[in-house]
């Protein structure tokens, strides 16, 4: 069941679905209602992602400030909560500069190509019981594929800016993205071996319940190595600090978005934080049991999605906090060291992990033990 059916159920429970459907049926346009409901889903998702992103920018500053014995934003709103809003207003008011020698079309296009996949990747992510836009049968593959679009846009942005620094930054970002997508995918496949399905809902459902009544059946316990590999690779994919080559400000000033200003810059910024949230959500989905958690049986049925959403958000924010914490305590590695780590250590380890998992799954499935 997905969010579409959830909305239909809610409307039915309110007694509103049948009459409305009949009105549309009378005109022979049932599909219009479907489109409207899907549209509502999209609006809710967009709003959720944008609010989350704004919150994350605030949280990032607060976490950094906490580590660095500072206050962080404090002036706008309670504890500076409205700071992202002010930032948004400021960025909208900025002049939109397109460099003279830049390729204007590509330069303008690139921020959108970065931003759209960052939203699209949320489609098969299960935020809670029923709270999924679409339970694709190839959900995991879809996520990895959609994430792979952003390097194209980054390369586009770097090349179109016609600036040496941004081109270098873009090329680094692409090299990094490609070399870390492989261990990322390999680590994810190991999980798929357990579930036998690429559907994110199936993956989450496979992690429900506990062993011996205490240890939750999360894949982190079956796949500790896979979890670590996936986490490192996803932080590299996000381009966050130990691996933030796309920016690496102390070498390349700002990397591929050096020439961007105003809302175009904001698009990159939004995409970056949307990506952070998405990747953390995927980590939670694959390894930390998704929205699974002890749901008391006395709760009414309509509360179950909400409680599961809360579990999901708690876990996701824990992963996000880890990423932010990491950013504050470690320096950046060098690009060749990063690629060495990716190809010479992580890919072999991920393959080994896959091999061992494959053996175990086959043995268990055939009942040898």
């Amino acid at each position, binding site marked *: 069941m997905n969010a579409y059916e959830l909305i239909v159920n809610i409307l039915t429970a309110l007694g509103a679905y049948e009459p409305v459907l009949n009105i549309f049926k009378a005109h022979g346009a049932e599909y219009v209602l479907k489109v409207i409901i899907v549209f509502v889903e999209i609006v809710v998702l967009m709003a959720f992602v944008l609010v989350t992103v704004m919150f994350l920018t605030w949280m990032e500053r607060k976490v*950094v400030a906490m*580590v*660095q*014995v*500072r206050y962080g934003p404090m002036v706008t709103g309670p504890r500076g909560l409205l700071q992202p809003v002010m930032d948004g207003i400021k960025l909208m008011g900025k002049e939109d500069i397109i460099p003279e020698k830049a390729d204007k079309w590509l330069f303008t296009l690139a921020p959108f190509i970065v931003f759209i996949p960052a939203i699209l990747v949320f489609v098969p992510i299960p935020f809670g019981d029923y709270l999924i836009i679409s339970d694709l049968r190839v959900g995991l593959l879809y996520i990895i594929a959609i994430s792979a679009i952003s390097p194209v846009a980054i390369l586009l942005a770097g090349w179109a800016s016609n600036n*040496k620094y941004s081109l270098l930054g873009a090329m680094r970002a692409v090299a990094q993205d490609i070399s870390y997508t492989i261990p990322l995918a390999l680590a994810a496949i190991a999980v798929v071996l357990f579930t036998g399905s690429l559907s994110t809902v199936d993956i989450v459902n496979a992690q429900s319940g506990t062993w011996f009544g205490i240890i939750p059946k999360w894949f982190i316990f079956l796949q500790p190595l896979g979890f670590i590999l996936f986490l490192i690779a996803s932080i590299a994919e996000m381009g966050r*600090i*130990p691996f*933030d080559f796309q920016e*690496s*400000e*102390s*070498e*390349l*000033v700002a990397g591929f978005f050096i020439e961007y200003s105003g809302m175009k810059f904001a698009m990159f910024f939004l995409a970056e934080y949307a990506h952070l949230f998405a990747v953390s959500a995927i980590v939670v989905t694959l390894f930390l049991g998704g929205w699974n958690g002890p749901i008391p049986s006395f709760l009414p049925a309509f509360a179950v999605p909400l409680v599961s959403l809360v579990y999901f958000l708690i876990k996701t924010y824990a992963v996000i906090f880890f990423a932010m914490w990491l950013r*504050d*305590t*470690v*320096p*950046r*590695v*060098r*690009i*060749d*060291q990063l690629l060495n780590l990716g190809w010479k250590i992580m890919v072999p380890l991920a393959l080994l992990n896959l091999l061992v998992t494959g053996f175990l799954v086959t043995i268990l499935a055939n009942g040898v033990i």
Partner: protein
Amino acid sequence: METDELIINLGPVHPSTHGVLRFKLRMDGEIIKDCRIVLGYLHRGTEKLGEMKTYLQFVPYTDRLDYISAMPNNYAYVKAVEELAGIEVPLRAEYIRVLAMELNRIVNHIVSIGSLLLDLGATTMIMWGFRERENALQLFEMLCGARMTFNYIKPGGVREDIPDGFIPKLNEFIDDMEKRIVDYEQLINDNEIFLMRMKKIGVISAEDAVNYGMTGPALRGSGVNYDIRKYEPYSIYPDIDFRVCVRSEGDSYARYMVRIDEMKESLHILRQVVDTMPKAEVVSSPKYGIAPMTGTASTVMTYFPRIFTPPQGEVYSRIEAPKGELGFYIVSDGTTKPYRVKIRSPSFCNLTAIPEMVKGLKIPDLIAAFGTIDVVLGDVDR
């Protein structure tokens, strides 16, 4: 594989050039084939100004050389003037000078390490460092009212005696700092990524380092046991027990570690200075000798003549500034203004070794190696 060469211009406006330095890099892909340093973006004609100002008027200009650590700059110039004019300095003033300079050495190393880590992408160290630096700056503020450009050490002594309540606050700072250095080390020293970025990067042999005229922590990181405080002792350093921190590796990590060790040594020196500081006068004058001073600024100012004429002659005097050997060469023609002031600044000489260090490395290594050289552009361009 042969690839096209790419000329990359790093600076003069770049986040990690610590000011307005410009590198012209000839790159083969990501490898630096050749590095040329282009200087002069911060040139203010300080040496010429020295010829146009009287001996006392020039002291504030020395603050602007290495603005991170201005006290040693003051002292280096004042020491040269005193040697030139044969001015006797009261003992307590020397103690206060050493106290101020060692405090400034700690501040300098904090900023140096902090900005090095910032260049490597770790933002926390500089924030932690600036917390302690703030305490030190407040101490300076108590001493002379200024936080960065002090104009505190003047010919014949210091501008005023240390105020009431300074010593307890200094002791507090020393105790606090000792714990903080441990914190820094826990944050940085064993960080695997930090080691990856620093070890065997920017290596310079002892011989090369000497030939390039490197001094200070950058030289001692290459295993040369050379510290002017020990080998040409000045002020009260002969009476003070301290160790010269040397490491033999000659890489970026060694230079970083020398700075951490030196901070500890400076704290050790500060403790001794506080314990043994005599209660006596603060200022002397070429006319009246050492004065029975009460310590207020106005009396000190009036006691030492604003315009004085040292005898004809020349002097080269050098000290161990936090960044290395800081020397002043002054020629006097017997008038109220020097005939020539030449500044031998540590940043400039240490910087010349960069192209040798980074040949065959990558841009991030250049940034790391440059960070460990610890350069202030005000000191380079003068």
